[in-house]
């Protein structure tokens, strides 16, 4: 007999970032008894770290913008591996989701005519990102938090969900969690459950993610038998901090480049001019003069009549270009590239537009970005892959289990555009909340299966009775180093095969990791449990990466450096778990209908795929 508390809800949401909060607000609005379970205090989730903005074709800053253009950019940025239905829904619905946030208290920066202002970002044809300086994520999470606490939700803060409950038919019927503060166990019966747990980038040692990013939702879905797709596609954001070592990986917003910042190598050359893939040829400025003119027009609030700087190419392209400069010996002092805004904008403008970047470099690196260039390099930032969902309802392949935000997959294809994540959260968070609540309204409350609950509880408590064994922190760090080396930005077949073997060893080491025996806020215990998810999601990523014998978006193989114009240009990897083993198969990607196809510009891709 294990002691636990139990609860009944219509809809349970796991995670309280942008997607989770938006889903919860919607579910409650539909009349569902709704609870959120989250690992941190409310308002601390990863969304808070988003900087640049939320993409939505409001057309406030450039009247030429529309949903069709946003759809086209998203598909092109994703190298046409996106789920077209999600890309269409996202482009059409994001403007209203942003306007709604404004009514809930978000104070976005304004245009001269008093509307929500929008900034330029990589891969977006028009200035499209609603923003607040460089702290848009803080604004969005705080707004949703302020709305959420008045929506009649129950909120369980600092709880970790370790297990999804299922009935005999495999339907998801709730979950089991533990309270990180006192170690008390909790079992929830829920008619529907929404995963909104974010990503997996804590699996790499150089990453922009917090401790929460251990792939909880990805793993919970796998363990419940749900399918994941696109797991090989990991976005390495081109600009993370590189020095000093303690801040390596911390995000430097793309907004720096959106505001005119330029990338240079140690020879002072703006190398992005020489790194334009065929797919984007002709879309960007070809001289420094043209780039400078674009910045001048944008700063003056004019509608740009010349092409944008090549620094604003998509993130996968810029990250690989920086990587190449470093590999060929033209890197910055500490192995990155120089990102220079000081020579492009006045000190006053920099402090007004990029206040937290100014602060971050000043405090953490002793660099004044209004005077000197920043040193930047790629950092694991986002996983495009995740739970396969129905594009309209967000339901996964396990019935009554939904997913929204980074843990879900499909919208971004092989590479996500900057700004499309914050809008993804609110568009698909809203949909998941709506459909999960509607489905719940038609259902009986599932009974708690005490056998399942007790097994889950025992698994949660088990690490506390281990003897001997390593500090979980040591295994955690070693595994992240391994993933960085062998499943990082540039991958190879032999390296990936080694990684799979290494993961077997990490799995063995993890089950004997010793976190001590306290149940009260025991960081080591939490980490010992996280190791299990990290091993499984790392394996999903590695296996998918090994299978895809080409380079595309957030997946680069040095043994297959070119994009495949055949099979892999229209095939996705599907991953699931069976009898404790991670399995993989390939599926043909659904193609958009003719009226959407004609919005796309695949001509350059057909000739020769990108990179």
């Amino acid at each position, binding site marked *: 007999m294990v002691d636990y508390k139990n609860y009944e809800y219509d809809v349970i949401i796991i995670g309280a970032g942008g997607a989770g909060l938006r889903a919860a607000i919607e579910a409650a609005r539909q009349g569902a008894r709704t609870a959120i379970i989250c690992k941190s205090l409310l308002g*601390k989730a990863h969304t808070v770290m988003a900087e640049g903005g939320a993409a939505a074709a409001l057309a406030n800053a450039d009247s030429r913008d529309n949903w069709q253009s946003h759809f086209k950019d998203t598909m092109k940025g994703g190298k046409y591996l996106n789920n077209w239905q999600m890309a269409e829904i996202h482009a059409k619905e994001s403007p209203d989701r942003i306007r709604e946030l404004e009514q809930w208290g978000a104070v976005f920066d304004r245009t001269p005519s008093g509307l929500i202002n929008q900034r330029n970002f990589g891969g977006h044809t028009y200035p499209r990102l609603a923003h607040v300086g460089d702290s848009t994520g803080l604004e969005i999470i705080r707004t949703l938090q302020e*709305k959420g606490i008045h929506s009649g939700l129950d909120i369980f803060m600092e709880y970790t969900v370790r297990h999804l409950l299922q009935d005999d038919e495999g339907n998801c019927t709730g979950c089991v969690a533990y309270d990180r503060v006192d170690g008390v166990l909790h079992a929830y019966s829920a008619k529907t459950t929404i995963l909104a747990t974010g990503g997996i980038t804590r699996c790499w040692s150089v990453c922009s993610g917090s401790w929460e990013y251990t792939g909880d939702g990805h793993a919970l879905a796998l363990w419940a038998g749900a399918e994941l797709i696109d797991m090989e596609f990991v976005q390495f954001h081109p600009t993370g901090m590189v020095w000093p070592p303690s801040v390596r990986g911390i995000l430097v917003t793309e907004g720096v480049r959106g505001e005119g910042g330029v990338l240079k190598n140690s020879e002072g050359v703006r190398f992005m001019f020489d790194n334009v893939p065929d797919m984007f040829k002709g879309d960007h400025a070809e001289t420094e003069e043209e780039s400078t003119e674009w910045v001048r027009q944008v700063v003056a609030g004019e509608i740009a009549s010349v092409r944008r700087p090549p620094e604003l190419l998509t993130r996968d392209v810029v990250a690989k270009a920086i990587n190449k400069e470093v590999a060929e010996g033209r890197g910055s002092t500490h192995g990155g590239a120089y990102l220079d805004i000081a020579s492009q904008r006045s000190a006053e403008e920099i402090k007004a537009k990029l206040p*937290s970047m100014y602060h971050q470099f000043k405090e953490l690196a002793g660099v004044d970005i209004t005077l000197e260039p920043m040193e930047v390099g790629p950092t694991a930032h986002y996983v495009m892959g995740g739970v396969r969902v129905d594009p309209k309802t967000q339901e996964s392949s396990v019935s009554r289990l939904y997913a929204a935000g980074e843990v879900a997959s499909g919208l971004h294809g092989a590479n996500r555009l900057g700004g499309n994540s914050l809008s993804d959260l609110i568009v698909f968070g809203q949909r998941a909340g709506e459909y999960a609540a509607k489905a719940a309204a038609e259902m009986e409350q599932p009974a708690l299966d005490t056998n399942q609950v007790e097994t889950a509880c025992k698994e949660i408590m088990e690490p506390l009775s281990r003897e001997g064994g390593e500090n979980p922190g040591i295994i955690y760090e070693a595994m992240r180093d391994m993933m960085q080396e062998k499943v990082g930005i540039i991958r190879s077949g032999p390296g990936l095969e080694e990684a799979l073997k290494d993961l077997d060893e990490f799995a063995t080491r993890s089950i004997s990791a010793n976190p001590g025996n306290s149940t009260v*806020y025991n960081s080591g215990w939490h980490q010992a449990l996280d190791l299990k998810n990290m091993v499984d999601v790392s394996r999903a990523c590695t296996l998918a990466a090994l299978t895809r014998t080409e380079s595309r978006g957030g997946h680069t193989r040095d043994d297959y450096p070119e994009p495949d114009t055949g099979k892999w240009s229209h095939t996705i990897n599907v991953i699931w778990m069976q009898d404790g083993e991670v399995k993989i198969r390939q599926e043909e990607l659904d193609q958009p209908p003719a009226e959407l196809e004609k919005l796309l510009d695949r001509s350059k891709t057909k000739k020769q795929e990108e990179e």
Partner: protein
Amino acid sequence: MVKKITIDIFRGQEGKGGLKSYDLELDEGMVLLDCVHRVQYEQEPELSNRWNCKAGKCGSCSAEINGKPRLMCMTRISDLLKETPKGTNITVRPMQTFPHVKDLVTDVSWNYEMAKAVAPIKGPEEMDWNFSQFEAKRAQEFRMCIECFICQDTCHVLREYRKFDEFGGPRTMVMLANFEMHPMDQEDRIPEVKNEFGIAYCNITKCCTDVCPAGINITDNAIIPLKERVADRYYDPLKMVWRKITGKKLRT
């Protein structure tokens, strides 16, 4: 040469316990949070602390470092070494104003109760609100708050006098000021600012402003204007006469 350092971290549960010394190696540019992690990974897996973004954006890792409340992620060891007297160690304690849980973790749930007691924004139902950047800026300053609760920890009304039932503290005042000064908001919170949130308890010593890691001018820009609005409503005889003449009633 590898540089070594000794840091004293508070270990214990529910207020009981004391400082314990840890020796560790330093890398260049380390912040205090890195040191706490190093102790956790190499010596004490059970060590409790909160953190998330490690870049001063989430407000999770608040602690009292050498007696001063600040964020562990934004406090560089090189700076701490300069301020720590020779022959003594850097000390890290949990925030003292809130109930202690374990090691560096405290129970900050009271702050969330306060937030829930603040009436949310109420503006026009039509979409596409129109206001200028100049107007936006006033509310935006308050929206930079990262809810680290360091201001609450520092405020003597809470810290020394324990007026949790009568006073909302600086963080709550910042939230109230944000809504009250939002260009489109139509809600009236002034009676609550006076009564439930007890703004009169603040005697504008500016301790909160001094410690705010987000650089919000809490006292001058949030608390004093709110005090003025309370004074206008309740204590200004001319305004009372004017309201009598115009027949315009305000909630008290």
